[in-house]
Structures are given as structure tokens and as C-alpha cells.
């Protein structure tokens, strides 16, 4: 039920932030880019729930869901997206750069695949210290085409470093279909080139993602090296707010039938864990939390430019 509640929180969060950003744009403000992860909630929640405290997570520019699922404070995420001093990154990062050092949430990244090479470093640190931690590096189907994807997976494989490469294949790199980015049926098949396991999962099935991640994490903790997990999914919205929707209606409708939250709700109902009234209660509770967070953001001050140089260097 906690996983369901988190998926709902991510969905409601993305909807509410889209509304706030749209209102700000209408008011002549330019609030920055917003990359909604609506439709991809099962991946953030399934992966993060399979991790231990202390494991490292490198997120992406579509990383609000990862941050929420990893336990970053909702109020402070809302504040960060809106450039407030109380934000998780003090207003220095914004939507694409959510960080929480204490939770080992190692940041989103404005560079496609930018976190992939950094994940090598935390994984190496874990091996050196023998602390048994694993590192998750999220990336997308677009990120799987950059050179650093190959450099990073190769190095982790050579070294047997504990990295879980989680590809959120939402079918489109901005507006370019995955078939134009990858000649293979599955991005996970690239694992063969590096001699590591590659697994394709239904990215809208939170329980399968949880199980697959837990197994890969266990393998990594044992010292058996990285795993490439490809989660096939679909984002509900266009790449970001400034790019108009371009994907075929039929395709969008087909994926709409496979909504991860509806499917998980049905599963919980079938198994007698929840009923419709309980699920509705969860939605209401999350909306109340969100309203509190928006109020917190509105009451928060803007960051102080006097501290800029102090933040740059230790």
C-alpha cells in the first residue's frame, strides 16, 4: 500500500507542478524546464523500494519520481522546482538537479546520461570500503546512445563494480523514436557486449520491477558485478513543457490502457489488500500533502546571491 501511495504521490505531484508552471508561464514568467514522469511511476517506486538505506542513486532530468521514492522531502522538492532557498538544492539546481547528500541521492542531471560515469565512482567507493552498498544509475532510451553509456558499462563490467543500470525506455528521446536510436529490439541486449546480465521488464509493472531490482542488487552486493535492466514504459506527456505533443494518438491510447497506477490499484483490489474507497483515500491524502508543500514553497524566501561564491568552493 505504501508503494501505491508513493506512485499516486508522484502522479499528483507531476500534475500539480505542471499546473503551477503553466500558470507561471501564462503570467509571463519563465520558470525553467519541467520534465514530467507521469506514466513512469512504477519504475521509480519499484527500483527504490528494492534498495537499502545507504545505497546510491543517480537520477536524470526526469527525476522527480526518483527523488520522492527515495524519500526526499516533498515540501523541499516543490520549493526547489520553484527556485526557493528552502529547496533540496537551495535553489541552485532546480527541477533537473535535485540532490540529497544525506540520503545518497546523487543528483538529477541536465546532461543526458550524465550520471552514468559518476555511478562508477560511488560503486568503486563501496567496493574499496567493503560497505556492501549498490549504486543505481537511471537513464533513458536516449541516454543509451551516448558514448559514456558504453564507457561506463564496460568499466563497471571489467571491474565488477556494483552498479544497477536502469534504463527507463519510454520509447522517445525527446521526439525521436527508440528505433532510430537503437538497432536492437531491446536496449538490454547491449549487455551481451559487456558480458553482464541484461533484463527486459514491463516498466509499468511495479512488482516485477521490485523483484528484478532486488535480485540484481543482491548479485551486485555479492561482488558479481553490474546488471542492465531495461524497463519498457511510456510517458504520459511530451518530452517537456515547451515541446508540443507529437506522438501518434493510437500509440498514446494503447499505452494509456496499461497505466501503472491503475494496474497496481487493480492488483491490490484483486488481492483484497485494498478497495476502491481506500485507494480514493490515498489520493485525497496525497493531495492534502501536496497542498501543504505548495503553501510551504509559496512562503519560502528566494536564495541569497551573497552566498554564490561560498557555495562554489568548499
Amino acid at each position: 500500500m505504501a508503494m501505491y501511495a508513493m506512485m499516486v504521490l508522484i502522479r499528483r505531484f507531476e500534475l500539480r507542478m505542471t499546473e503551477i508552471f503553466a500558470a507561471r508561464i501564462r503570467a509571463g514568467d519563465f520558470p525553467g524546464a519541467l520534465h514530467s514522469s507521469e506514466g513512469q511511476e512504477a519504475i521509480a517506486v519499484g527500483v527504490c523500494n528494492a534498495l537499502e538505506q545507504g545505497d546510491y542513486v543517480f537520477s536524470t532530468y526526469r527525476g522527480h519520481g526518483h527523488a520522492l521514492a527515495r524519500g526526499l522531502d516533498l515540501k523541499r522538492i516543490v520549493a526547489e522546482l520553484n527556485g526557493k532557498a528552502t529547496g533540496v538544492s537551495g535553489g541552485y539546481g532546480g527541477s533537473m538537479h535535485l540532490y540529497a547528500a544525506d540520503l545518497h541521492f546523487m543528483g538529477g542531471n541536465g546532461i543526458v546520461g550524465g550520471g552514468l560515469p559518476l555511478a562508477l565512482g560511488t560503486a568503486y567507493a563501496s567496493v574499496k570500503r567493503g560497505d556492501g552498498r549498490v549504486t543505481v544509475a537511471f537513464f533513458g532510451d536516449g541516454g543509451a546512445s551516448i558514448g559514456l553509456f558504453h564507457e561506463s558499462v564496460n568499466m563497471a563490467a571489467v571491474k565488477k563494480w556494483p552498479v544497477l543500470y536502469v534504463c527507463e525506455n519510454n520509447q522517445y528521446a525527446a521526439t525521436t523514436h527508440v528505433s532510430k536510436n537503437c538497432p536492437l529490439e531491446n536496449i538490454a541486449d547491449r549487455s551481451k557486449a559487456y558480458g553482464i546480465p541484461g533484463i527486459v521488464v514491463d516498466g509499468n509493472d511495479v512488482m516485477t520491477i521490485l523483484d528484478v531490482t532486488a535480485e540484481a542488487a543482491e548479485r551486485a552486493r555479492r561482488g558479481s558485478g553490474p546488471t542492465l535492466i531495461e524497463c519498457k514504459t511510456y510517458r504520459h506527456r511530451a518530452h517537456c513543457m515547451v515541446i508540443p505533443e507529437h506522438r501518434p494518438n493510437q500509440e498514446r491510447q494503447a499505452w494509456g490502457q496499461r497505466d501503472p497506477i491503475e494496474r497496481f490499484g487493480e492488483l491490490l483490489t484483486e488481492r483484497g489488500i485494498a478497495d476502491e474507497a481506500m485507494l480514493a483515500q490515498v489520493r485525497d491524502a496525497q493531495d492534502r500533502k501536496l497542498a501543504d508543500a505548495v503553501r510551504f514553497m509559496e512562503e519560502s524566501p528566494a536564495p541569497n546571491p551573497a552566498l554564490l561564491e561560498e557555495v562554489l568552493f568548499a
Partner: protein
Amino acid sequence: MRKLKLIQALNEAIREAMSDSDDVVCFGEDMGDYGGVWALSKGLQKQFGEQRVFDTPLAEAAIVGTAVGAAMAGLRPVIELMYIDFSTIAMDTLINQMAKARFMSGGQFSMPVTIVAPCGAGTCEASQHSQSLEAWFLNSPGIKVAMPSTVYDCKGLLAAAIAEDNPVMVLWHKGMYDVSEELPEGRWTVPLGSAAVRRVGTQVTVVSYSLMARRVLEVAEKLSGEIDLEVIDLRSLNPIDERTIIESVRKTGKLLVVHESPVRCGVGADVVRRVVEQAMSALTSPPRVLGGRDVPIPFAKSLESACIPQADDIERTLRHMV
């Protein structure tokens, strides 16, 4: 006292830092049992083990990325780029990741990464193994840059760099590979941001760094008795010791900056701006900058020499100025 070559001094600084702290680690291409193509990590794997000193695949961007992630997890990596020219391959991890992670996180992470790399021309290796790229990194807020001109400073600046909680690039000039110096026993640091006045004089302030600072000193000795030069070796370019430069120009009224990297948008331009803004009234003639010609470094010796300031060029310019 004992005599040490440049690389031995750098190696000693890493060895001492690794002895002091288990968090200091060292890796890169050929850095494991081979000890680095320049011998930077010679003997370190044997002393500190494969977990702390190791070879990586040939992948500069991933090497820098590993260092960045390891630093974010609390380690203090010292890595080598075999030539500064190869930094182009790692630019995203250097500029968008290493230089910015602390800043973008609102100061949550430290970034104690030290990058050691050789730079400079004079070895007939053509334009992809001969560059001086410091201006790029000075133009990327979040990275400190040191370029020593003595073996003593090589060790002291590298020790200071490893102790820093910020990214520092220590760039040594290949033309100094065989330089050796009498050095004291034991440990020392040279603070980043402190220039050295190598020669006290009254007529012209000559600001330089790295191999060019050595060349300027030779010219100064040759001209002594004729032109009395004050020679400032910057040692570190970010932070830069602005005060020492301004004070000297207020005394001499003349400024020449000499470096190997291209003059356009380079350190010389930056130093001249600072002087013009803060000591214009002290200047008795226009400040000058001698630097690399606005072409890639060519291969043939005759071409290569024509592209970087030679002792004759420095002397001619100085005679013209006084």
C-alpha cells in the same frame, strides 16, 4: 637535501598523501602495476594495493566520472590524464559534472578531485599532444588550476591540491620533465593562489608561469645590468594572486605577460584587465602579452618554435618597452 626530478616530486606528494589518508586513491590509464606512462604512480600499487591504485580502461570521460563519483562518496581521488589534450574527451565530466556538482547541490557535496596532466609544446608531438589548455578551465567556474615552474612547487602545489576539498588541476610542462632540483627532506605545501616573486626589479614587471617563467628568468639574468626586471611566477591561475601583480606594476609602471597558450582570451588578457582596472594610472607604457601564435601547434621543430614565445622574442619585446 637530495636531488629530485619533477615526476619523482609529484610521485612523492601522492605517496605521502596516500600514507596520511586511506581515502586518497590513484587510478587511470596505465596507473596500476606499470606506474603510469610518465611514472607518476611508480611503486604506488605495490605499496598501497590494487584497491587504491589501479588501471582503468582507456576511457578518459569514465575515469574522470569515476573520480567525481568517488569524491562525492568521500574519497580523495588523484587521477592522471596522460596528456591535457585528452581532456577534450572528458569535457562533460570535467565541466558539467566535476566543476558543478557541489554548486548545483547548494553546497552539499565536496569535490576533492586532483587531476595531474602534462601540457605544453616543445617535444615535436604535433597539435594533439602539445597544447596548453588552461584558459578553458579558467573559464569554467568551479575548477582550480595550478601550473608550477619548479620541482619544489610541483610537490608543494600537488600536496596542497590533494588536501583541497575542491577540484584542482595540476598541470606540469613536458619541457620540465628532466628538470631536477635540490630539495629539502620531508613534506611541504605551496598554497594555491600565492605567486612567487622570482626576481626583484624596478623597470618592468614580467608575469609568467610554468615553463615560460623559467624562460623569462633566463632572459632576466641575461639582461641584468641593462634592464632590471621583476619576475612574478603565478604558480596558480585560479585562484590568482592579483595583489602581488598589482603591487609590482605600481612599482615598475610596466607590464609584460608571457605564456605559451594562445594570447586570445588567455591568462595574459585576464592579467592585463586586472592591471588596467586597478593600476591604470601607474602604467607608463601599454601593457603587453606574449603568447602562443593563433594556430594549432605544428609538428616540425622549425614550425613549432615559431608558435611559442622564445627567449629572443621576450628580449626583443622588453627592449621595445623600455
